[in-house]
Each structure stands twice: as C-alpha cells, then as structure tokens.
C-alpha cells in the first residue's frame, strides 16, 4: 500500500510549509524515520522523517514549493509494490504538532477529530535583532487540528464568498482570524474590523485600505556580471516581516548600562571545568538570565504584553535566547527560567543552541517567550539596540565582556583597576514602559550581576 507523505502541521497557526530540499530521490529506498526532506515554515525549519519503509515513488511538491499543511508532498510505495497504486493511506501524522513525527504512525483517521493541541498559538519568537511574530494573539484563531472536511471547518476556513473576496483583495488569511459567526466563521464585519484595526494585520501585506508606507525607490539592478539576484528564503522573508512589523508596532527606546562582570567572571572560571565534566559549557548567559529573572519578578510590567486596551502580565518567565545561524536567526525559549539553577540553565541553553543549528527545534521550543536576550557582543560589539520580539515589550542586548581599566572607589581611595566590563542595553516599548521603570530594572540587574551572589 502506498503511503502519502504530507506537509506536517509544524505548530498551531501554521498553515503552510516550504519544501527546502529533498534528501531522497525518486526511486531510492527509505526507512521509516529516516530523514526524507527538509522543510521551512513560519516558525521553524525541520527535517521530516519518512513515515514508512519503502521506495520513494513520487515527489509531488518540488523544492522551493510552498504548500498547505496536510498537502501530500510525496508518495512512498511499500517494498515490492508497484509505484503509484495511489491507495489513500495517510499514515503520516498530519496533525502531529512537532517534527519529527512519532515513529509509529497513527492509523489513518478517516474523519475523526484529532485531539486539540494543548497550547494556544503563541507568536514564535524569532531571532534577534529580533523579530516580532506576525500575529497579534487575540486576533488569531488557535489553529487546532480539525477535520478539514467538516461543515464547521469549511465554514471557518471558507467563510463566505464575500469574505473570501475581501480577503483575497486585501491579502488577509481568514483561517487565521477569529470569527464571530457560526463555527467561528469570519463574517464581513469581522474582516472589515480586522483590516481597520491599527494593529498590524496578521498577514504581511498591509490591507489596501492602509496608508501606503513610503518605500525606497524600486531596485533597478539587473542580474548580470555585477549583480547576483537570489530569491529570499522563507526564513529571511519572515525575519524581514517581523522586524518591520515590530518597528511599526512598538515605540522602541534603548537604555544602556555599563556593568562590572568581574565577580561572575571569577565564578565562571572557578566552575568552568567542573561544569565541563558534567557536560555543560558555562558562559555568562545563565548568570545574566538569573539576574533578569529576579528583575522581572520585581518589575512585572517588563514581562508583559499589551494591546490597545489592556496589559497582559505573564506569570511564566520564559526567556528567549537569540541564536545566530548561518542562514538566519532563531529564538528558542528557555521555559520557566526561574525554576532552573545555573547548571540547568547552562544545559538548556546548550541544548537549544545545538538543536537550532541542526534544525531540530520543535515549534514548542520557539513559542511562549515573555522576554528575550540577544548577544550583539559575540564578535566584540560594544552594545546593540535590538528590536523587540513581538508581542513582548523588552529585549536585552548583552555586549562583549572585555577587561578595561576602571576607576574603583575603595575605602582607601579611588584606584584604577582591571575589571571585566560589559555593556547591557535594554530596548523597551515606551508605549507600556516608561524610562524610569526601565532604568530601575536595569539598575537592579546591574546590582545583582555585580554582587556576584550566585549558587552554582
């Protein structure tokens, strides 16, 4: 029996994915769970394992092609079976929330409703100088897997002829709006309200009714010996959209503090080898995270989100860590960072960074962040002015830690000492956070780091 390989649902609210690369050619044999293709989606890039043993008989979605979730992208025939028997055997876990799909494929459900996913769609943090996820959560339908053929689901995704026309003309993805009609159907009023809202739309393109933003003159470069033109990758497009959207959403202000890292540098040197023996690389970052977590507890408005009418204070302290990749950026999230000690944070950071670089992150790994840390100092930069990772309201940039001559006040008088200094910059959303609060928060972070009272 042939097995369909489908574009997996790589996270709630993800509607489509792009085939980046086929790892197998037609005619090659594959084993179940062997990497079959690489895909790229709004939130993560991932390798998709084969759902079955057999021979890859047909590649339907070519490299570079973007298809909807659950679209069949290839077929695998069982050993010894003729190609193209086409029996509909969707063994691929179409609704699995994460890649890779579970090794044992669930039996093909003819129609049953898959279990709802546990978490509402949270905008995926992406990397620094980071990027807002495009969605405003309250506008969004938390896309739980549903039976695509049910009346409810057709109402929700197809709405009505009128709404489809408006959506098409204005590039709005109605499946991502929360409708007020029957079965959550998006009504005319819903879509018109959505397009009139001042908050940016869920789709990258502004609605036609919006004032066009002034754009630089169109490029006039032609491909030729002096110019090379390449299409943008999915990730690059998303980063571009997220960055611009954040700049349009928040009132960015950056405050810069010089912080003495000498005490934690000592701690780090003392414990580095012991940590290495336990399989963790000890960097400055876990110390910074612990300081941040303590600061966020004292200043909950910085661990928050907002819309036009309300502030949403987050109880969880989920710290996103921007990771630079050769092909872009991504922001995996250390969940409940306040519950981890320095060792736990170190391991979590190492693990997320490693999986980010090997495309093994699951959508859950990049969702739910409430504050983000980025590291513009990694190549020696003094400090950066990062872009807020929407819908968060602040992001910390950690500059390079460098030994400098510093005037230190002692009882015996001022002396010049060699200290490990670092510049921390906090970009905050001035719509919600005033400068005084941001500076008090930063002063608190500085005090914690400089005191060096960490338990290792």
């Amino acid at each position, binding site marked *: 029996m042939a097995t369909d390989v489908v574009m997996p649902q790589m996270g709630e609210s993800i509607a489509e994915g792009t085939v980046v690369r086929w790892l197998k050619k037609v005619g090659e044999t594959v084993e179940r769970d062997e990497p079959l293709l690489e895909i790229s989606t709004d939130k993560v890039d991932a390798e998709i394992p084969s759902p079955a043993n057999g021979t890859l008989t047909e590649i339907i979605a070519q490299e570079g092609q973007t298809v909807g979730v659950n679209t069949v992208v290839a077929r695998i025939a069982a050993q010894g079976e003729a190609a193209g028997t086409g029996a509909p055997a969707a063994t691929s876990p179409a609704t699995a929330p994460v890649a890779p799909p579970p090794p044992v494929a669930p039996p093909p459900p003819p129609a049953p409703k898959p279990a709802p996913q546990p978490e509402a769609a949270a905008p995926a943090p992406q990397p620094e100088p980071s990027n807002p996820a495009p969605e405003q959560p309250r506008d969004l339908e938390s896309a739980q897997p549903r039976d695509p053929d049910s009346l409810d689901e057709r109402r929700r995704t197809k*709405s*009505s*002829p*009128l*709404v489809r026309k408006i959506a098409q003309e204005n590039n709005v993805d109605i499946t991502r709006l929360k409708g007020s*009609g029957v079965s959550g*159907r998006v*009504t*005319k009023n819903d879509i018109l309200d959505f397009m009139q809202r001042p908050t940016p739309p869920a789709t990258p393109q502004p609605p036609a009714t919006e004032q066009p933003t002034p754009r630089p003159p169109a490029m006039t470069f032609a491909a030729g010996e002096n110019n090379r033109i390449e299409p943008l990758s999915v990730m690059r497009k998303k980063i571009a959209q997220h960055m611009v959207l954040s700049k349009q959403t928040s009132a960015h202000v950056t405050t810069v503090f010089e912080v003495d890292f000498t005490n934690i540098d000592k701690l780090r040197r003392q414990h580095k080898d012991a940590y290495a023996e336990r399989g963790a690389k000890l960097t400055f970052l876990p110390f910074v995270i612990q300081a941040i977590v303590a600061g966020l507890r004292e200043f909950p408005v910085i661990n928050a989100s907002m819309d036009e009418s309300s502030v949403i204070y987050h109880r969880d302290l989920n710290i996103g860590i921007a990771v630079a990749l050769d092909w872009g950026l991504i922001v995996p999230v250390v969940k409940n960072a306040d519950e981890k000690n320095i060792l736990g944070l170190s391991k979590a950071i190492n693990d997320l960074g490693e999986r980010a670089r090997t495309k093994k992150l699951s959508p859950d790994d990049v969702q739910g962040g409430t504050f983000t840390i980025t590291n513009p100092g990694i190549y020696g930069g003094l400090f950066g002015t990062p872009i807020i990772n929407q819908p968060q309201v602040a992001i910390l940039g950690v500059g390079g830690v460098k030994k400098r001559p510093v005037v230190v006040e002692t009882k015996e008088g001022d002396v010049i000492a060699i200290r490990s200094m670092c510049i921390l910059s906090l970009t905050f959303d001035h719509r919600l956070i005033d400068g005084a609060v941001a500076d008090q928060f930063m002063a608190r972070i500085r005090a914690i780091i400089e005191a060096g009272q960490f338990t290792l």
Partner: protein
Amino acid sequence: MPETTYLDAIREAMIEEMRRDPRVFLIGEDVGIYGGAFKTSAGMIEEFGEERVIDTPISEVAIVGAASGAALMGMRPIAEMQFIDFITVAYDMLVNFAATSRYRVGSPCPIVIRGPAGGGTHGGPFHSLNPEAMFMNRPGLKIVAPGTAYDAKGLLKAAIRDDDPVLFIEHKYLYRRIKEELPIEDYIVPIGKANVRRSGSDLTIITWGSMIYVADDAAAELAKDGVSVEVIDLRSIIPFDEEAILNSVAKTNRVIILHEAPLTGGAGAEFAARIAEKAFDYLDAPIKRVAALDVPTPYSPPLEAFYLPNRDKVLAAARELLAY
C-alpha cells in the same frame, strides 16, 4: 385629503382608464349588476353600461378567451377572476394563446387579468392562491403584485396601457385594511420597477404583496436590536427589478426572500438563483427564503396561521443569518 382603500384604488384605476380610453372594458363574473364579489366594480355598470361592464357565465376560459379575442381586435379588456385561484381553468387560454400572440403572429394581446389572491382570510384551498410562480415560466406574460393602494392604482393603469398580457395579482387581505392618500392627478407605477420601502445596511428582505407589511414589522423589531434592514417591495414579478435586488445584496450581503406562496418552486427560487448567479461574491451568508409550507392552504384558522409566513418566522430567519 380622504384616504383611498386598496380596493377603491383598483376601482378608481379601472374607472379612470375607462373614462380615458373607450377601448377599455371590464369582463367577469358578477362584475356588473352585483358590482363584483368584493364590490371592486361597484357603480361601474351604472356609469359605463353593460356594453363595457360585462357579466359572464361561470366560465373563466370564456372570460379570458373573449378578452383575448377582443384585444386582438384592438380593445383593451380587463378580465376579472372572481378568485385568482380559478385562473387555472383559463390557464391554456392565457399561457398558450394570449401570452404567445405577439411571438406567434406579431399581434400584441393587451389584456389585464386581475383578481383577488392570497391567504389570511380563511379562504381555504380554493380561495387563497398566490399564483405568480405558476406563470413566471411562461414568457410573454407580465406579472405584477402590488402591496399598497398607490401601487395598486398605478400598476393597474400601467397594466391596462401595456401592450402585453398582464396578470394583476391583487391581495384580498389588503382590500379594506390598507388606506392611503393618493394623488389626484393621473399617475402610473412602471412595471418592472421595485420600491425600496425601507433602506438598511445589514440585511435585505425581498418581498411583495401583503408580505411587505410582515417585512416592515420584522424590520421594526430588528431595528430595536440595532439591526438595519432594507425592505424591497418588488411590485413586479415579471419583469422583475434585478438591478434593485443586486444593488441591495451588494450593500447588505445578507438576504431573505419572503413570499406568501409555498416554498418549493416558488418565485423566491428564481430570485435566489439570480442572486447566486450574479451576486455570489457579495454574499456573506446563505440566501434564505421564508414562505408558506408546502401544503394546500388549510381552511382551519389556526392551521392557516401556522402555514403562512409571519413576523416571527422572518425574525428567526433574520437572526440566523445575522449570526451566521
């Protein structure tokens, strides 16, 4: 200004047209000496004599046949059905003979067939017909169904002056219930032109005949909830004002078609189809029809009330569409 009933508006239209044009005459059962079963032609035989107000035997086919023959000879007859239900007896004469005349032999057959239609008066299955759908699919006929005294008078004059056979459906429930001040001067209401009775933005009710008042009531009730309903009185069924329908649907995106005849195969089906064909992209909800049940009109008053469309049925349909 005195008010004129819907019934008197019809009589005045006939009288004024007969005074204006000697070719116009009235023919039907008891239209003369008795003045009509509903007194629609009361006093007319006194003014115009029995040559122009003609009592006939009980034979609808004879009435329509005589009228059609007279029309072909240059007259402008008005043929009355005592109840519009009995037009079925003259169906052959009307649809095969009169309606096709212009197309068969190039001679128009300018007759008006008029008579009391509709339910709500405990008339039972023989005296409650709404016949429009029976004639919509017979090209060559025009069909009008006024709901106001103004339209009854203006449309009847337009029908008499029209060169084609016109089926004039007058609603007997409205005869004496509707009174309006009418213009003193001569006027017509053009055939094929709808009237927007009430302008609105959230929902359109397309209707005609006595149902315009049901639509008004429902619209007033919905207005209390802040819902803006547009009520379109089609007035003419064939030809109908497609432009008015499509414009309204384009504006409100939600539409109810309300008619008193039974649902299945009713005139509403044609309007719904036309909207689906030409305004599909403007629909934000299904097209909804509110109509009578698919049974002969019951004689029992409670059953008749159950069978007919009413305000609550329209409200239920409207609320369903508004929540869709």
